[in-house]
């Protein structure tokens, strides 16, 4: 994941250039940028629109519609806490509260060092692991507060560190 000040604009231009003139290719192009930089810098909306012969407002509309695309820079590790029914019954709410406290982040927030982003998801589809969470693409289940602490520690979160 790239911090905003570290964006390689040349690389971003190159990604856009790859799809120049292909107005159908908006989503693949956006995914490409999202994948490369971890988010889509707002400043690039006009450039993308111009390259694809679209209106800038259309490009923004697509980005803001899909959960998989983001205009805000995210942390290196994106933590997704499950808020599905099964997880809720198994105490998912207190797990989320605990995560918030441990990370010092609210839902949707990113730590100032761009290490962690905390998000919630309607259901991770891993109900048998309830309560469950994901860090980037890895699943963790049957969570308890100590387990959450140790998972976060694995990703470099020391206890008491903000």
């Amino acid at each position, binding site marked *: 994941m790239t911090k905003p000040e570290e964006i390689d604009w040349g690389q971003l231009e190159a990604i856009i250039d790859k799809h120049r003139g292909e107005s159908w290719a908006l989503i693949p192009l956006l995914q490409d940028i999202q994948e490369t930089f971890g988010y889509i810098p*707002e400043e690039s*909306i*006009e450039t993308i629109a*111009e390259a694809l012969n*679209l*209106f*800038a*407002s*259309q490009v*923004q*509309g697509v980005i*803001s*519609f899909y959960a998989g695309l983001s205009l805000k820079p995210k942390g290196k590790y994106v933590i997704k806490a499950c808020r599905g029914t099964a997880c809720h019954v198994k105490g998912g709410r207190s797990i989320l509260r605990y995560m918030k406290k441990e990370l010092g982040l609210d839902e949707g927030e990113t730590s100032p060092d761009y290490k962690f982003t905390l998000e919630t998801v309607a259901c991770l589809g891993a109900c048998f692991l309830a309560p469950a969470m994901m860090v980037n693409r890895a699943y963790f289940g049957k969570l308890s507060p100590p387990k959450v602490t140790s998972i976060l520690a694995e990703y470099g979160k020391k206890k008491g560190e903000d």
Partner: protein
Amino acid sequence: MEEISLTINGKNISCPPGTSILKAALENGIKIPTLCYHPHLEPVGACRLCLVEDEKTGRIMASCVTPVSPNMVIQTDSPIIKKHRINIIRLMMANHPESCIVCSQGNRCELRQIAAELGVGQIGLYPMPHYTGLEEANPFIIRDLSKCILCGKCIRADHELVVVGAIDYNLRGFKSRPSTVHEMPLEKSSCTFCGTCVSLCPTGALSLKNTRYVGSPQNESSTICGFCGVGCSLVMGSVDGQIIEVNPSHKEGTVNRSTLCVRGHFSHDFLNVSERLTSPLIRRDGELSPATWDEALEVVAKGLKSIKKKNGPQSLAFLGSSKCTVEENYLFQKIVRVILGTNNVDNCSYGSGKAVINLINEKLNGGGRIKPLAGLEAAEMIFVVGADPTQSVPVVGYSLKRASNMKRIPLIVADPRKTDLVSFSSLWLPLAPHSDFAMLNALAAILYKRQSYDIDFINKFTEGFDLYCDGLSSVDLKKVSRFTGLDIKLMEKAADLIEGKKIAFVIGHGIMQQRYGTLAMDALLNLALMTGSLGGDGQGIYLLARENNQMGAWDMGAAPDFLPGRQSLYNDIIRKHWEQNWEVKLSPDPGLNIIRMIEEAEKHNLKALYIMGENPLRSLPQPKRISNALNNLELLIVQDILDTETTQLADVVLPGAAFSEKGGTFTNLEGRIQSFEPVVSPPGEAKPDWEILDLLFAKMGYSKRYSSLKDIRAEISNLVPMYSELGGNGVETWIKETSNMRLFHPDREREPIHFSPVITTKNEKSEKDYPFTAILGSLRYHLGSGTRTGYSDRIRDFGLKGEAEMSSEDSAGLNLKEGDKVRISSPYGSISREVTIKRDLSPGLIFIPIAFQNNDSRQLIELTQLGEADSPGWKECQVKVEKLET
């Protein structure tokens, strides 16, 4: 294809495949409630109110997006459908603020109307309104998105009708709302404030700001917009005889469909300002003071008669009006020619393309006048030369953008500046000012070299092609490239786009007002003849008239060389014919055009001038010269609606009526003749201009009286073949093409059209003291010289300053920053402006928007700076620029 038959509410219906159920129902008089549907927009099925049930399958479908299929049995109002509809409305209302009592949409709110129809009062749901801030920083539109029901009409109007793209949906779910990029306020987005979204919004989410009156109008009636040459159909709402709001009309087949522009929507304040003239005025002891109609007309009639007796008819001159109606211009020139015996009649649009019109008229024998804008969207390719329609005639701009963006029609824009249209074009030819003729001839030369021309058309309808080919084969592309500043490769590319296609040329003031305008038009007509691009729909020459009735004023003979029907005054047979019609001897002496009138007044040869609905003191170059000339006159009569710079000098002022206060007819740039009725009455003692002219006829002792518009229309339709359908059935008719040059049928007899000589360069004298070329052009917020639009509170509040645009290179050279003040001077005068820096402007050019700051930019040009064959040459001039220290 075979029609599909189905049953809706027990009625057997058949319609073509692909028709939506909703359309099929509407066409058969079955009403289905809708909120997101609009006939001019692509259906999206957002509101779900148009649900219908298929009895056979029990399926429930949104009828606006479901096509008919054979043997469907549709119920539009069954109990289950009703239940669903009521629930949808309840949910929408639960999400809507309960502010109906103070909402400006009032009873016009479609959500409220449908709720009432369905009997939804108490919704019985927990209210969850989505409050958002009110956005009202701009002076045109208030956005209260808490009232938005997400029907998407504004977004679709923005994308599909006016093709601006300022807004789209942003975010999803409960948070979803129409938004600009980066959620900026509208004035910082690409929004052009055409107001189309406001007219289409079913609720109060979008409303007009700075209305003179809050609430629904007492009366609504249709009329035709009095600003530019497009002639949009309007609905004007009035309360107590004052216009309070303007919307596009709901009629089908209008030129503007559901759109308007910022002027048409927001600039009608001039109708109600205190500067309106409400009583005739006569100058007594140096002061203009109120008089009765009888007194004022007595002074006019006596004055004109005695000056004629003393100095002869050539000492009188008359300015008709490109803003007044067809009927009024007809009467006006009739008074001039029949009663006063002179041809000294013109109108202020002389400088807006008369020379070019004369050329086309001569070559095509008056043909090719009918040019529906819809044809542009069916063209094979479009070539825009010297026009910025997105600013000057925005509704034409919409057509061009739709053609390019949605129909993918190739579009070439030839313009020294990167206009808004360039981003929609396939190719931009950034040529040097007034080098269009060279560029057009070079393109013809490239096509000739490729043997790409329509030889059938050439053989049947033209002569002199061999000579033309000789001219083309001697064109030196390198020389043209140097003269125009265009790369040869770029011109080759343009030729690629044109090759094998019929061209629709769109011509604006860049040609019509340019010093080599007639040369460019010659070259353009050659190219049109060579490619056979004349006679069909979506090809030929679209002339962008700036004024609402510019075409009609010329058609009615408000010109020194045209009799009504644009017939030549100098043709003895035609003149004899009109002498019989009018039972009078007509003067064969050529009349004075507007420039010659001023010159003759300067020389004290002209003694009296009668101006109807024009403000030459604000619109013509060199205002000092104009006011000196007008002061030389013994008698100046001004008939107008507003107290203007020109009425201040008058000896007699006659208060006329604005277009919304009288009936009449305007002829638009398409050749559409649109008649309209008054919406309100004129203020005070003001009278419709045709009534004033009728009274004047009587005062001058003419036997015939015109008691109604019907009488005038009957005379016109009788005598002018082009207008033979005027006053017939309906309010809209088209120019009747009396010329055999319209469709170019091979079997019809006609004179062949000559190719013109090929000219590719001109010797330009370089002006060392005035190194910049200033281009004068309009912005969409003002029309012409801005006499009327200048009164718009909203446009004034918008705070435009008419900044001069300069290239980044030149501004760096002069050490100028954005917003710095400069003095711009030419040999004729100087103005001061703030500077705005444009990256895309070529060095050496400077763009000055007209109409701002009392239209002072006209001080830079010379009144009599005529170029080739009377082309006015008012489009650009040489200037110098100095930084002003602050």
